[in-house]
């Protein structure tokens, strides 16, 4: 041993070391005390943070609630339908942030019509930027199964990005719990919230599809994509959950794409033979009215879809879409 190793600690050094040790122990204890949850998690679910989606709707215009554009080119019918409602400027103001919620439920090629058409989504993004002068447009959905693949293989991710939108894939931290006032199913349930928390407007885009459980999947069913958790339990009461989703989400505008309609084997489809060309696109501020019209594209009646009457009863919109005097146009 050399001289240095034999050196003894001075009293001062000892006190300093002891002091540091004491402070460390005290800090750890204090932190533990502050973080300690004496009650622990309760049985059932109780969360401190509950959220409510804000109302994104715009001022009602009696004669400009719903438009129906006929034509095979989605970009043209979209532009026409929105123009008939007063133009995108009515819905998106300069500097606003817009969230677009297309149906991206499956990792399915666009040709099969199981998801929103990517070119239609891209055209809405372009409109928001070019005419609406939006500051930012995001495109999001919660497909549950491999969202990245769903956005990639449906073509929506690439098309939306190319049009300038930010594609937001769902992450666990984006989900917050909500309870729908007057709801029976949406109680303390996680929803995809964060992407919608700071936006000014919300636009839903959905294809017209046959749906094995719900009868049909259109703009109201599209909000199912916001649900987190084991949302399949709601299949037991599909009509109520769709009606409650329509109560929960008050969008700025919905776009129902009936250019090609999935007539059979929905919601997944799988064959182009499941599709029928109807060359119809609906834009509306009333999702109940839009879906009620959409029934006709599926050779269904409004009464075939009980969720429409439930939503109407809840004051979401009207199934009597003709009373809204929808504006019709054909794009040659």
């Amino acid at each position: 041993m050399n001289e240095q190793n034999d050196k003894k600690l001075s009293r001062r050094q000892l006190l300093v070391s002891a002091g540091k040790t004491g402070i460390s122990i005290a800090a750890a204890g204090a932190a533990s005390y502050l973080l300690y949850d004496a009650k622990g998690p309760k049985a059932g679910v109780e969360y401190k943070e509950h959220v409510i989606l804000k109302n994104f709707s715009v001022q009602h215009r009696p004669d400009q609630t719903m438009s129906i554009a006929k034509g095979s080119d989605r970009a043209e019918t979209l532009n026409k339908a929105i123009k008939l409602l007063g133009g995108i400027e009515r819905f998106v103001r300069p500097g606003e942030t817009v969230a677009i919620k297309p149906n991206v439920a499956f990792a399915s090629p666009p040709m099969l019509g199981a998801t929103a058409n990517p070119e239609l989504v891209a055209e809405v993004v372009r409109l928001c930027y070019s005419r609406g002068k939006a500051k930012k447009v995001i495109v999001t959905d919660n497909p549950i199964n491999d969202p990245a693949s769903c956005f990639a293989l449906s073509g929506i991710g690439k098309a939306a990005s190319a049009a300038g939108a930010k594609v937001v894939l769902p992450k666990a931290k984006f989900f917050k719990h909500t309870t729908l006032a007057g709801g029976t199913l949406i109680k303390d349930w996680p929803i995809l919230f964060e992407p919608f928390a700071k936006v000014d407007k919300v636009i839903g885009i959905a294809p017209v599809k046959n749906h094995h459980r719900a009868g049909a999947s259109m703009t109201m069913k599209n909000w199912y994509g916001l649900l987190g958790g084991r949302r399949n339990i709601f299949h037991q009461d599909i009509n109520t959950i769709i009606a409650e989703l329509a109560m929960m989400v008050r969008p700025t505008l919905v776009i129902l794409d009936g250019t090609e309609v999935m007539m059979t084997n929905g919601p997944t489809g799988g064959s182009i033979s499941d599709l029928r060309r109807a060359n119809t696109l609906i834009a509306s501020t009333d999702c109940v009215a839009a879906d009620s019209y959409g029934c006709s594209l599926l050779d269904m009646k409004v009464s075939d879809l009980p969720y429409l009457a439930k939503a109407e009863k809840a004051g979401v919109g009207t199934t009597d879409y003709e009373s809204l005097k929808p504006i019709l146009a054909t794009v040659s």
Partner: protein
Amino acid sequence: MGLVPYRARRLESVISICLLAVLFLIGVGVFIKQFDYNTNQYGIQQLGVSLISIGAGLVPTGFEMLSKVEVYNSENLYEKINGKAPLYIESGFKELSTQRFVNINDRSLWMELYTYDMGTVKNAFSVYSIQRRAGSEAFPPMQLGTPQSGNPFAYRTDNALYFVHGRYYIEIVGSSESGELFSAIAEVARKIQANLAAGLDASIAELAMFPQENLVPGSIKLYLVNAFGFEGLTNTFTAKYKSGNETVTAFLSKRADSKDAEVIAESYRSFLIENGAVIKNTTSKTIVGKVMDFYGTTEIVFTAGPFVAGIHEAENQQAAEKLAKILINKLNSLNNE
């Protein structure tokens, strides 16, 4: 206790730093590992039980795997097919394995293979038949599916191939109508047929119980539960027949015995009457009291030994009664064998 020498304290510091470094590395390891968890515990498995034995052998020529095999059970099937999950689960679904393949030279050409293990050939036939696309083309070249005279249990559309392989119902869905892609789809189907053990010895006896004359090819469907919205009608086969310019639907359901068949038939007739049906007159003695008008369509419900059978929603009463008589005779002849 004496004070610690400086060298010993330095050694302690080094050891402490090493321990902290180890703890840090463990933390990093846990952080990284959480993104590569054992998905078996959460429903999605890395390798499908049903496809694992075949492995990469399914990849068609000129293609490569685009995704790993994913496996879904009845708990998480909805994650893959959403609202269509109940159709499978109510039909005895066990497991779904999926995998995608992509063309090496043209990435726009890809396909997804869905292998539904339905437990029995009957369950597989049920989901196959219920979803069969009207007007689709039978796909007999490879005699896919359960061997059955005139019923290869396989059909194609422009972009996809659907078939029953023993207890499996299989869909191979292509991303386009490309002929090259469909050739690859057919190649995958052949490989499945050759390599996936499926218990092909099982057959569906009821298929041969329908009269063959005027039977629309590929029209037989099997509803395992809730046929025509009536809970009591389980295990019910339907078949379409040409009658002039019209189509008439016949059905049959084999029960435990003739007594059970009578009970179910009577319950179903009562169900129809409760929902608005009224008994119609008929000149045919064998079905007197069994012909009903249901909002302008004709319903006939009768029994033949252990079978509940009849005609469903026929536009034309005469055509319905004619087919009903043929079906009664056929079933009675089978009962007498």
